[in-house]
């Protein structure tokens, strides 16, 4: 049964994986990529380039209205999106999965307490929390944004993990482990969590896409990282005033956003589907 039931990755999904790899590598290694320009270098001040320039060999994707190289800004801007998304996913998975799996397995009072807390946080408007924190701290850098978004992603992960754990806990191998006399903590980490992991991972990729869009929207509203630090959202925001002169500076970061979000969803979907195939084979 087992051999061959594994789903083959379609070529399209492979392309998505490649795109994500390029974005991640670019963001991590941006400082070392040969030929990549300084994202904040304003060429017109030195007479080396024009503002709102069309794509050329010097600037592959053209320049924006401050004559900065768009390709460089997209590569560096990816950093913001990815750091925010990665923090959110990491915080969400670690804490959300721990809380969710724990209460989904033990149920009872702990479940009631954790889930009502989760509901309260979910009901609280995230934007208001973000504004409050930013105002109180008086700074708006990547650390603060990532921390707030990370905190806000714990509740949805807790919900997803709890639903998974409820189903897994009903499986007879958990009962069998209890009948053997395995300690509850061991059962949680050895039997319950590993079986909740794939479901949570599928959700994590889709959630990462949502977070990237959220960061884009925040940046567009001027609520994400402080310019001149590049982020895809604030690039669109800055370029939108000149859209009638040159629409490329709006198009490029938007495309980066669309491709990334789409790829995350596509790969997340594939993981979920291949998992469904495998559990159907069980």
């Amino acid at each position, binding site marked *: 049964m087992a051999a061959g039931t594994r789903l083959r990755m379609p070529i399209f999904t492979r392309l998505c994986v490649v795109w994500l790899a390029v974005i991640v590598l670019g963001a991590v290694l941006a400082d070392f990529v040969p030929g990549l320009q300084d994202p904040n270098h304003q060429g017109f001040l030195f007479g080396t380039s024009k503002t709102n320039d069309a794509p050329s060999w010097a600037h592959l994707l053209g320049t924006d209205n401050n004559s900065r190289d768009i390709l460089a800004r997209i590569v560096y801007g990816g950093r913001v999106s990815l750091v925010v998304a990665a923090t959110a996913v990491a915080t969400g998975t670690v804490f959300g999965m721990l809380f969710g799996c724990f209460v989904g397995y033990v149920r009872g009072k702990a479940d009631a307490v954790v889930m009502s807390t989760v509901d309260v946080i979910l009901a609280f408007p995230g934007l208001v929390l973000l504004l409050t924190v930013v105002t109180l701290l008086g700074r708006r850098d990547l650390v603060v944004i990532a921390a707030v978004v990370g905190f806000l992603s714990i509740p949805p992960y807790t919900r997803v993990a709890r639903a998974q754990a409820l189903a897994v806990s009903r499986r*007879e191998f958990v*009962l069998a482990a209890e009948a*053997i006399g395995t300690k509850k903590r061991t059962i949680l980490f050895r039997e319950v969590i590993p079986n909740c992991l794939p479901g949570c991972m599928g959700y994590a990729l889709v959630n990462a896409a949502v977070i990237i869009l959220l960061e884009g929207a925040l940046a567009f509203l001027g609520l994400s990282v402080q310019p001149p630090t590049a982020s895809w959202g604030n690039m669109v925001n800055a370029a939108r005033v000149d859209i009638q002169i040159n629409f490329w500076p709006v198009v490029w970061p938007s495309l980066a956003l669309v491709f990334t979000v789409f790829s995350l969803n596509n790969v997340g979907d594939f993981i979920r589907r291949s998992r469904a195939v495998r*559990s159907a084979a069980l």
Partner: protein
Amino acid sequence: MAGSGKAHLRAADEVLVRVEDLVVEFPAGRGRTVKAVSGISLDIARGETLGLVGESGCGKSTTGKAIIQLPPPTSGSVHHGLVDLTELSGEAMRRRRTDVQMIFQDPISSLNPRRTVGDIVAEPLRVWGPHGRDEQRALVDRMLEAVGIDPEVARDKHPHEFSGGQCQRISIARSLVVDPELLICDEPVSALDVSVQAQILNMLEDLKAEYGLTLVFIAHDLAVVKNVSDRVAVMYLGKLCEVAGPDALFAEAAHPYTALLLDSIPEPDPTVELDEGLSEGLELPSPIEPPSGCRFRTRCPHATERCAAEEPQMRRVADGHHVACHHPLVAVAE
């Protein structure tokens, strides 16, 4: 009964496990309770196989799980030797778990899909020892061989690479690796094809002899129960109807419900006459609001007013044959 009473229980020194007045209830929402098991008394002699038989919803699986305190019963006692398991703390019960093991109906669901077979069978050893790697491995290999699985082939594979019958074997290996006294088998062959079912039944008989096991065999299939049991208890809607040796039970069923079950078995013999009128259109009552008196009375062809008013108690039909019915089908020794 489906009624109560303890006339069928044997002397305490003969039995390994004695269950008295076992009650298991679950909340069913809106303040109602499901009365899954309502006052069952049973005993299991050392070395015997007790068959627990009945239709879905009769509480047979719940009874089996209550014996190993997963979950503990709402009330009643489960004596294992001199110890009442229901009185033990969580940790004290955990320490006794190796004595009583259980195997489940769904062989695939009872194995963690993300762990290897070797790992699964070694799990009880990881909890209870021996802790030495080589010792564990030797024990696991010997156990896998005993259930007819080649350890060299199976050790590093995952459960989904095996058929249902093989998963059930692995599951049995896991429960026997700690050398339990009592093995509770909860519908162990119901999910299997008939040819595989026969393999597992034969193997259980062999293992029982080899390891000196006492078995509780829970099933809905009377023919299967008859084949493996030394004593059969028939359950209906949370109550016990009849307790007897398998051959006596089939030869002269005393309870009308037992008779109905026996008549319903599809015999693989085209010359057997089929009873067209049997139990036509009669539904199982809800375990939330079970009928008063005898719980079987709503489906019983012999029911009288007395059955609604008064719950029948266990009475002796013959040695080792007891029935809880006001109007048994065979004469009862008063």
